[in-house]
């Protein structure tokens, strides 16, 4: 730890390290895409399937592993991530000799997670966050985590870095994609649901774990896993809190993706309103697109537009949560918290998240065009996912089932989600009726369907 005193906070503190590591990855991706000089893509398993199935998009494993490009990308991924995180660890004053072998082992476990979560059925419904937690939990609760692996378990470091990289994909121009209709449905409802769940969780159900309440509230009202990761980091949620919020959100998303369009069809709601309702209430973006398409092409468009606006909210909600926790939850005395204290407590990675978003929205997109930004995000998305898989595997490795069960607060957390989600659906339904039914305002027509 002595060494870290000689290094400035910007280089030596994990919070700032996440910012500059994230920006190094973003910068290299921008150079690679804009100059076409080299391929910076990270490795990813394509969907594969066991035996004959409905997996029309599945690529046989032998074909994937037999391609040189797979191994080249794997080497690039492990070298880039290992080099950057090791540099961070060194500047934190920790042992590099201990970190490198531990990181490589963690990476191998994360590789197994990504391999399993690329299987057709597992990929379509649960994906990496769930499997990373499960595999980590299985290891830690059966054979146990050896001491030499522990230096690599740096959950917050990986999460914060992933979030800074993710910031580049949040484009502010998307805020007006569905005009005031989209803003009304996505933005009026979301904070009300968060506040309702906060009130329900902390005042009525008396759950004393406030980071868990806010993490679950944002997962419910914004966009599931991504929002939970950002808000969890902003509120200083513990690893168990994040595991619980994400597991609940993932399982319920499967149900909502199938049953919500069924109910909408059964009650005879039109595609415009049905799509907006789905976009505003189903947690994961993939599930929103699929549930919308079950109603029809117009519903799919509207659902995707509303969800895309909600995706922008992640950074703002995380920012508000960070300020709220710094000024109200984490304060030690009744005195008003000063600006200096707020700055000290404020999670700096949020600055990196916003900076990345602003650069993408107001610098790269206007100069190089939307297509270039999409291509850059195609590269960055996999680095973001790798950082999150490392984080979630770390969470699993650092958790035991007993601790996890305790954090359910005797089932209160589940009921907080259920009641919050019902409130979310009811309020979004009202907003959808108010804005899109034609009773109060003109019914908007998407250009594609004119």
């Amino acid at each position: 730890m002595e060494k870290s005193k000689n290094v400035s906070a910007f280089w030596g503190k994990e919070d700032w390290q996440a910012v500059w590591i994230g920006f190094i990855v973003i910068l290299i991706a921008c150079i690679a895409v804009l100059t076409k000089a080299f391929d910076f893509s990270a490795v990813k398993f394509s969907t594969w399937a066991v035996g004959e199935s409905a997996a029309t998009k599945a690529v046989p494993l032998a074909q994937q592993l037999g391609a040189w490009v797979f191994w080249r990308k794997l080497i690039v991924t492990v070298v880039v991530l290992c080099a950057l995180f090791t540099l961070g660890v060194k500047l934190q004053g920790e042992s590099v000799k201990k970190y490198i072998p531990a990181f490589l082992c963690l990476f191998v476990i994360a590789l197994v997670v990504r391999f399993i979560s690329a299987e057709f059925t597992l990929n379509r419904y649960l994906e990496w966050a769930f499997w990373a937690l499960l595999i980590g939990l299985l290891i830690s609760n059966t054979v146990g985590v050896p001491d030499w692996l522990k230096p690599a378990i740096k959950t917050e470091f990986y999460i914060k870095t992933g979030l800074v990289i993710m910031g580049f994909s949040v484009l502010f121009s998307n805020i007006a994609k569905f005009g005031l209709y989209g803003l009304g449905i996505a933005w009026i409802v979301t904070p009300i649901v968060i506040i309702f769940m906060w009130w329900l969780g902390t005042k009525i159900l008396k759950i004393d774990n406030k980071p868990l309440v806010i993490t679950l509230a944002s997962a419910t009202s914004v966009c599931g896993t991504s929002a939970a990761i950002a808000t969890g980091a902003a509120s200083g949620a513990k690893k168990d809190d994040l595991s619980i919020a994400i597991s609940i959100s993932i399982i319920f998303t499967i149900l909502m993706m199938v049953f919500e369009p069924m109910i909408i069809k059964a009650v005879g709601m039109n595609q415009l309103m049905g799509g907006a309702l789905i976009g505003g209430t189903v947690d994961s973006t993939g599930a929103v697109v699929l549930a919308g398409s079950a109603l029809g092409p117009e519903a799919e468009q509207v659902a995707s537009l509303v969800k895309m606006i909600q995706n922008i909210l992640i950074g703002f909600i995380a920012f508000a949560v960070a300020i709220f926790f710094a000024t109200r939850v984490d304060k030690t005395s009744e005195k008003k918290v000063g600006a200096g204290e707020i700055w000290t407590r404020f999670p700096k990675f949020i600055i990196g998240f916003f900076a990345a978003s602003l650069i993408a929205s107001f610098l790269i997109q206007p100069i190089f065009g939307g297509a270039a930004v999409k291509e850059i995000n195609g590269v960055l998305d996999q680095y973001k996912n790798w950082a999150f898989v490392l984080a979630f595997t770390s969470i699993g490795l650092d958790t035991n089932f007993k601790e996890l069960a305790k954090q359910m607060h005797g089932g209160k957390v589940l009921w907080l989600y259920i009641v919050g989600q019902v409130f979310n659906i009811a309020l979004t339904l009202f907003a959808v009726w108010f804005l899109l039914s034609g009773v109060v305002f003109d019914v908007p027509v998407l250009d594609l369907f004119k």
Partner: protein
Amino acid sequence: MATTKEKIFKVVTILVVVTILICAGWIMGRHLGLVPEYDFGAGAYYYADIPGFENIIKDEGYHTKVPYWVHVVLFLCWGWLMYRLWVWIDKRK
């Protein structure tokens, strides 16, 4: 000692959890809700995780006459108002 109310709450919660897990397993087993043409599912948490998302969201999807800055101002005003509401509710006992 748990009261009868607490016991009922626990039993109902367990029943809900079991039902949800069975439903989720049933949906997954039958591949319900998927679209064969799309190479993603509910597991694509974020829009950037969806291959070809730009083809799903068409740029010409909707054109509004309201200026962009109006959206931004309304967005920020509502956010600030809601933050104040959150603080006010949290202060109440």
